[in-house]
């Protein structure tokens, strides 16, 4: 039996390198020696402030959120046995966004800071439940279509909130938030999402064995002692908690959950349980990398992270369609 250790170790090294690099990169480039000082000594020096107050929380958030999306993608793909399943496509992100938009729109976020993640989780939960309820039993196609329908509904309700926004400023704020970004996020945001990401991630990781058994189809998995209803509920709660909280802080970030499990699957022997942890690490690497790219690529205003991941993620989706065209009869 092969182990995942070399793969996980390589991903961790890559993640650590990117993490350190993300502290240096940006409008103000910081020399590595100053970055180390900023990490280990807190002072009033400008570079230390930039590092500790701006870039460190941003990098930590990128890791947390990338890992959530990667984990959720791996688990959803294992559950549906469909390599196209991911939080974004199944409507989880749309539900979380709608919940968060409601919190912003009604000013709940200003009164109670946890309102945004909590409503984000609630939105994600409702959206995922509807997708699962509509799409279950109808196979892969039904699930993807249900996800598209739920995403569409979420998008329409968000558009409605923009339409009815009390003033142009509120609409602009919601718009801006929807594009997905890690800019100007602080330690408060980190501590807000951390517990949800940890709880959601822990729930998702426990599903590994059941997802392995599910490789043999539902009947055989059931005969091996897997409680399918229990498994679906775990995935539903885990995904809604981790992705709902993540989305409510950063806005919609698509395709990380789709691409991360794909990239590492060939190195894990395609076994669903062994995809989960590396997919989390790969998700963190991808999102951190994408966030660094948005800071390095200068096109006037800073590129939004969600826009960037969609721009680089969509071709991947196209590639999948082309692959299907080749194998289709």
């Amino acid at each position: 039996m092969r182990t995942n250790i070399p793969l996980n170790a390589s991903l961790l090294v890559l993640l650590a390198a990117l993490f350190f690099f993300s502290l240096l990169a940006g409008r103000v480039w910081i020399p590595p020696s100053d970055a180390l000082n900023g990490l280990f000594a807190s002072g009033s020096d400008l570079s230390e402030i930039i590092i500790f107050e701006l870039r460190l929380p941003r990098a930590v958030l990128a890791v947390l959120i990338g890992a959530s999306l990667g984990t959720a993608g791996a688990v959803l793909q294992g559950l549906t046995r469909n390599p196209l399943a991911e939080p974004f496509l199944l409507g989880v992100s749309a539900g979380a966004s709608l919940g968060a938009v409601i919190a912003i729109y009604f000013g709940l976020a200003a009164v109670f800071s946890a309102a945004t993640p909590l409503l984000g989780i609630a939105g994600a939960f409702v959206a995922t439940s509807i997708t699962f309820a509509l799409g279950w039993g109808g196979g892969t196609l039904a699930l993807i279509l249900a996800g598209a329908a739920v995403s569409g509904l979420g998008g329409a309700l968000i558009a409605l909130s923009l339409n009815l926004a009390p003033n142009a400023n509120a609409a602009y704020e919601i718009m801006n938030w929807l594009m997905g970004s890690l800019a100007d996020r602080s330690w408060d945001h980190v501590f807000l999402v951390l517990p949800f990401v940890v709880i959601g991630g822990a729930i998702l990781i426990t599903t590994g064995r059941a997802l392995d058994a599910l490789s043999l189809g539902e009947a055989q998995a059931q005969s091996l002692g897997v409680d399918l209803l229990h498994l679906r509920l775990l995935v539903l709660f885990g995904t809604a908690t981790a992705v709902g909280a993540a989305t409510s802080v950063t806005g919609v970030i698509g395709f990380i959950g789709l691409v991360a499990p794909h990239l590492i699957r060939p190195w894990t022997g395609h076994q669903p349980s062994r995809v989960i942890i590396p997919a989390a690490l790969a998700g963190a690497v991808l999102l951190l990398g994408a966030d660094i790219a948005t800071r390095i690529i200068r096109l006037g205003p800073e590129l939004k992270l969600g826009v960037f991941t969609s721009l680089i993620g969509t071709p991947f989706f196209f590639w999948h369609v082309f692959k299907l065209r080749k194998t289709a009869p």
Partner: protein
Amino acid sequence: MTKLEVSSLVIRRGGRNIVNDVSLSARTGEFIALVGANGAGKSTLISVIAGLMKPDGGTVKLDGQALNAFRRQDLARLRAYVPQNPFCEWPISVERLVALGLTPSLPAMGKMPEAYISKIAETLDAFDLNDHRDQPATTLSGGELTRAMLARALVGDPQLLFVDEPIAGLDPRHALDTIKRLRRLVETDKLVIASLHDLTLAMRYATRIVAMHEGRVVADGTPKEILTPALLREIFDVDACVSGEGAGAFVDFVSTV
């Protein structure tokens, strides 16, 4: 010894009784071939006695204990089930596929215990799968996949094995190999219940035949008692010719009535 007791089982789907008042008693050391026309209720009956589907009436008991009183894991260790045309969704290795049979015995997380690793190796060997150990299961031929799935079902050493149409779609050599493997399990004191359409193989290798027609058990006994032209005409609605005995037995259909 484990005893399976099925009494007055009823399963309804769409207002119709798919399985209608079936009672049956079986024990380890038997190889029961379940025969009957398409739609006779064989697959449904197998799903229910395997505990995968709840009956609308009647009970299924193992050693006097109702199936739904078992913990999922305990039941999974006691019996194995292989559906018709089993498949593998991901290109995992054959070794991993066989290892999945140990799922009910494994802790929720962590490494596979040493004893299980040698058990998997033994099973791969017993099912002639050593050459395919690292091959993706999705690339196996029909005969190889059937062997791998049986290995998966038996790696955990269950007392009972329920298989739905294990030789459907197999060429004669693989069909014979599969049915002989099932028969050999009787000698290791297991109960095998398999639905079969090949009556010649059923007659040669099963220790007992249960014939179903429109959801009911219409005959239950030794192959010689059951596989007679008169009964085959009743069940399959065709004329049959039965000749020979034991390993030289033949059942063939002659013409439509």
